[in-house]
């Protein structure tokens, strides 16, 4: 019985140690070995700095069959709205129009225009108005949507949208320099997208 004790104790302590203290450091940090080697050759006294690769969970490889669910990461500068959420479908507002993404979608890089992003999970649909950004759809049914601003649709005030649209349309007509024209055009685009998001 006492012979087993160190083994049991070691197992218990290793389980304890496996719990990491930091909230978001990954379990398996990887690093670019060629960078570290090159660093050590030129600058042996200082430890090589870490690179973002060591702070990220490695992504799973492409599965042989199409998975049932799509994993969505929807991030904004101020928070991660959806982190690794399993959904059935997302519709993203790409510059070429609304694009539906299902599990097994071909790998795509899409630039986004102001519009509605809807997340379909079973029977729930959550709609967000996104300002712009990028969407990456990977071959392993993971979709990353990076947006600058996003609000749930129920937080948008229709009266302010109308007012903003009128303001910017007026600015567009009175704009003189290219810069002013471009800014006014952007304002008109965003507000008309907001308008159609609220009505449509």
């Amino acid at each position: 019985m006492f012979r087993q004790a160190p083994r049991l104790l070691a197992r218990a302590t290793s389980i304890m140690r496996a719990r990491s203290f930091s909230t978001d450091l990954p379990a398996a940090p990887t690093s670019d070995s060629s960078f570290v080697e090159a660093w050590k050759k030129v600058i042996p006294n200082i430890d090589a700095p870490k690179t973002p690769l060591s702070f990220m969970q490695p992504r799973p490889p492409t599965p042989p069959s199409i998975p049932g669910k799509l994993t969505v990461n929807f991030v904004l500068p101020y928070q991660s709205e959806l982190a690794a959420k399993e959904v059935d479908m997302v519709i993203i507002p790409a510059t070429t129009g609304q694009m539906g993404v299902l599990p097994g979608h071909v790998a795509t890089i899409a630039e986004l225009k102001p519009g509605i992003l809807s997340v379909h999970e079973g029977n729930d649909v959550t709609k967000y108005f996104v300002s712009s950004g990028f969407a990456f759809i990977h071959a392993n049914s993971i979709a990353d949507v990076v947006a600058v601003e996003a609000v749930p649709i129920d937080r948008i005030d229709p009266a302010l949208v109308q007012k903003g649209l009128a303001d910017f349309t007026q600015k567009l007509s009175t704009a003189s320099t290219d810069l002013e024209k471009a800014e006014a055009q952007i304002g008109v685009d965003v507000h008309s997208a907001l308008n159609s998001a609220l009505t449509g």
Partner: protein
Amino acid sequence: MAMATLRREGRGFIPLISPNSINAARSSIPSEDLVPQGARSISTQVVRNRMKSVKNIQKITKAMKMVAASKLRAIQVRAENSRGLWQPFTALLGDTPSVDVKKNVIVTISSDKGLCGGINSTSVKISKAVRKLNSGPDKETKYVILGEKAKAQLVRDSKKDIEISITELQKNPLNYTQVSVLADDILKNVEYDVLRIVFNKFHSVVSFVPTVATVLSPEVVEREAEAGGKLGDLDSYEIEGGETKGEILQNLAEFQFSCVLFNAVLENACSEQGARMSAMDSSSRNAGEMLDRLTLTYNRTRQASITTELIEIISGASALEG
């Protein structure tokens, strides 16, 4: 006989030598007026002044630690929320710090204010090392400096390599709009093949890890995609929107730079507050120890002066009678 004389003479000195007055002398510290006229005493003024100033310094450093702790709490939440921002880009484009290019631009992020431990020196050391790593024939390295402290250190030996330097970044609370304007400025004015952002990533209140994040320019991305390796399967991605792939890659690179820079600036600000907390904490502790040592010296000096007074008085009294 001497004792009898002392007792006779001692009556005249009772107000001074009686136990009550000695207790009073011990309890009230500034007690110069209890010294009889003409007797010398060692001055404790010097030590008392030092004690006062060390105590004030201790109060100040404790207050600075509290301020840094509250600022850290506020900004840590935002930094952790922004950590998801750069991950999609690294997932798509990979992380290639050992890419070989002609024009390197090193963006060094540091603080404006001092008293924050060694993080600024660490950033500058790593920047200089990255520059050395990427030096070679017809390769050039330029600096873009955010923050006063790195500018002060780098201007000494690399003045001609500094393209842009930006200070007073934290005058208004950090937000994405400000950082994206900054990123736009940098991208417009600096020619680059690769941007390397050097900052201190915040792990915990006592641990800050120097990190280098790499952002490639669209041309280098194309070149690496053709060459294969990590970016090799970039071609398998369909491009939606825009006219050409080049345009999309351009927008992508710019967006990636602003996102990575935003996260880097927030992490560095967290590291700055954390480093300041620990620096001020060790400073308060040192001040406390110094105060203890000074108190001992003060008490020894004070007791020595009382003893000297006593000796002088007693020897004076015994000289008078003898």
